[in-house]
């Protein structure tokens, strides 16, 4: 096993002042800076379009920020692009590019910031905005075999309630469509997996594993089979209805997403969430994380066909689901968050049952972990398999436990604390090998940390109101975030002048991680592919929205 040397120190905190100084120094005249609020710490407006790639490179590589996402908005016919960067422990930096409606293309930053690749492709597919210098636009969300080029359904001129067979989107499957194959060896072939695979128990993703026999040479997943245009459905909706969408587009992280959405509304209206609600939200979010990680561990055991361990982990998960349902009335914690706090309160006795369940789950997890580490046939499938080394993890901006297993410091609970996380003591586990075993260890450690946080939250609960009255203002824009079990989730909401949602943008951790998934799979054998997939624990439906 090769040892990856640990970096000397974790990511340094970057002072915003130094960022401001550096930017002003290098980009005099082409940018203007301002301190912002509503979630964003610093706004950089780019006036000279061509300096955008250099600015992105500066932020990402030189200053060490990570890339959050790209928000494309069509405001009264003009384009407004927001590139979101996270300066570690300092806050979000928004790089704004405004372009008129006649602009056909905008320079692409993907050659500098590879993590922006898919964000730009999505914008091109859904808005029709070209990114100059991006070599692979098209056939991303709107699959070429079904959709004609240039559909751009997210433009304002298309309505969401349009029926499938309406004239604007009349489309036929393209019978001559062929996938783009990269490996040119005469004996190479592309093994198709999906979109219906594993008996349908896997979420719908299509892989073409290009190979010459044993090793996978290239594996790029084809996603967006589950694309339901959540962002478009939200346009023109009431906040309470969009909250439902935020909860339900990715159910296994539903509490975290609804939390991020509520944060945007609370920020917009300037409401302070009461203390009891903050602690309760933390407790419920950690309960979701604990349950999600138990499920991910069950998935890893199942992929290696270690049946007893998979069943035991599934028992832990089912108990946590039942405990969630017993406490809140829903197994997946739907219907709890609302802007301003929680919709309901809980009696203190209810927490006794919950804590018993959590303790039992933690005990079972510890036993399971210990025995898994002694099962060498299981470890053989995980160790040194699906390696993502720290450089690639940084380059492709891996989120969540997957990134932390390759040495990244990317936990939003630490980098950008929200809710009550600033007051709690907890560790963020990191590993550096980046293989499947490291990811498994990170999952276990995070589960234990979540258990500890649940206990701390239960102790800190004081009687009090569980929601503050929050009326969303007629207009406003804000960024909200939370650390979902898979990674950092960002929600961006803009209200039009009448309190309805004008633009709802969701940047999910699965979207970022699926982009980089291929580096873990390539150059490993076919048989390792399902195991690597399980150790990543990604959700296709969260990516697809």
């Amino acid at each position: 096993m090769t040892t990856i040397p640990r970096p000397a120190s974790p990511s340094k905190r970057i002072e915003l002042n130094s960022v401001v100084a550096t930017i002003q120094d290098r980009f005099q005249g082409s940018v203007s800076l301002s301190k912002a609020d509503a979630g964003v710490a610093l706004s950089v407006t780019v006036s000279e379009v061509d300096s955008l790639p250099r600015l992105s490179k500066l932020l990402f590589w030189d200053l060490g920020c990570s890339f959050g996402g790209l928000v494309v908005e069509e405001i009264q016919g003009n384009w407004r692009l927001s590139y979101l960067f996270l300066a570690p422990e300092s806050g979000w930096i928004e790089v704004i590019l405004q372009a008129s409606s006649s602009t056909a293309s905008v320079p692409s930053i993907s050659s500098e910031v590879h993590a922006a690749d898919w964000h730009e492709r999505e914008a091109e597919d859904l808005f029709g905005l070209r990114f100059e210098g991006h070599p692979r636009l098209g056939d991303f969300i709107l699959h070429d075999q079904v959709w004609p080029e240039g559909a751009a359904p997210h433009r304002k001129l298309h309505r969401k309630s349009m029926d499938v067979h309406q004239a604007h989107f009349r489309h036929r499957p393209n019978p001559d469509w062929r996938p783009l194959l990269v490996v040119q060896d005469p004996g190479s072939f592309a093994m198709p997996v999906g979109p219906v695979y594993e008996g349908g128990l896997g979420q719908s993703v299509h892989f073409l594993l290009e190979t010459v026999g044993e090793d996978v040479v290239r594996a790029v997943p084809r996603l967006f089979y589950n694309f339901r245009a959540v962002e478009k459905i939200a346009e023109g909706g009431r906040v309470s209805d969009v909250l439902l969408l935020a909860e339900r587009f990715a159910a296994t992280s539903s509490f975290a997403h609804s939390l991020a959405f509520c944060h945007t509304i609370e920020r917009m209206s300037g409401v302070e969430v009461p203390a009891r609600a903050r602690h309760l939200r933390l407790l419920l979010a950690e309960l979701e994380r604990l349950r999600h990680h138990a499920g991910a561990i069950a998935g890893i055991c199942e992929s290696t066909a270690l049946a007893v361990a998979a069943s035991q982990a599934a028992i832990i998960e089912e108990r946590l689901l039942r405990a969630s349902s017993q406490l809140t009335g829903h197994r997946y914690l739907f219907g709890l968050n609302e802007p301003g706090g929680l919709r309901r309160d809980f009696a203190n006795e209810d927490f006794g049952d919950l804590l018993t369940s959590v303790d039992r789950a933690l005990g079972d997890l510890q036993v399971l972990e210990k025995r898994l580490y002694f099962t060498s046939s299981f470890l053989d499938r995980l160790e040194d398999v699906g390696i993502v080394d720290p450089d690639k993890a940084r380059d492709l901006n891996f989120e969540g436990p997957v990134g932390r297993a390759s040495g990244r410091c990317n936990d939003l609970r630490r980098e950008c604390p929200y809710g009550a996380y600033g007051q709690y003591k907890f560790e963020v586990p990191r590993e550096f090998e980046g293989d499947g075993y490291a990811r498994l260890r990170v999952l276990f450690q995070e589960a234990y940390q979540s258990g500890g946080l649940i206990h701390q939250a239960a102790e800190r609960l004081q009687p009090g109101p569980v929601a503050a009255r929050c009326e969303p203002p007629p207009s406003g824009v804000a960024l909200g975030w939370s650390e979902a079990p898979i990674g950092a989730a960002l929600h961006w909401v803009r209200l039009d002048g009448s309190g309805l949602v004008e633009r709802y943008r969701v940047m999910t951790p699965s979207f970022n991680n699926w982009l980089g998934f291929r580096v873990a799979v390539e150059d490993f054998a076919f048989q390792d592919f399902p195991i690597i997939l399980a150790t990543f624990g990604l959700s296709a439906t969260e990516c697809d929205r």
Partner: protein
Amino acid sequence: MSFWFWHGIQKGVYTTRYPKAIESAPGVSPGRPVATVFPSPMEASLAVANCPVDAIKAQGNSARVDLRRCIHCQRCRFGGSHLLEWRADFEWTAVPAEVEKYEVLPHAYDHSLHIMVVDAGDCGACLHEVKQLNNPFYNMHRLGMFFTATPRAADVLLVVGPVSENMRVPLLKTYEAMPDPKRVVAVGVCAITGGVFGRTFMSAGGAASVVPVNLEIPGDPPPPLAILHGLLVVTGRKAPVQSESLLERSA
């Protein structure tokens, strides 16, 4: 490796006794709203306002629930006024409105049912609940039900999700690849009426637009026991619920 054998034996049996006995452990089902009688028709119509998806209809004094539209947001359960009663059960499988009667599979399939699942835009919750059927608590193998990897060997197709446009063709191909006799079950409210996604340019609004549906299991998501009940209905070991007694159909 013998550790795992002893560990498993030591842990004991967790499996539910359903369908021999109704399972009533806490947390197995979120329950569902039932028709509630209010003191006056005006209060009943106030109860209607609680629901964001128009699943509650007022009929005189009582507010009735169309379970085919209910997304389990629990806004009629707490956090508001004029709340409805909820019942903790899980046997919800019903026959769709367009279908006269459910035709049961031949007897050979009673204890040997092979299931194919298609994720057609599902949020993940319904699929996750379907996967839980294999865990020791529910253990569908004891009832003779198995997941297959290929539709060629499948008898029943479970569709989860509102059928996103990109999954329309794969779902159709899966259905066509299944040999007769076959049945289709729409699991979850998204597969029945489209849920919160409805019918848009990217979502077909339910599986019935794409494949003929024989049974529906409402819920968002239906708990594993509800899905298990649905599978028992497929084989005829249990009867689907009658609409007049438990569910309402919207016009």
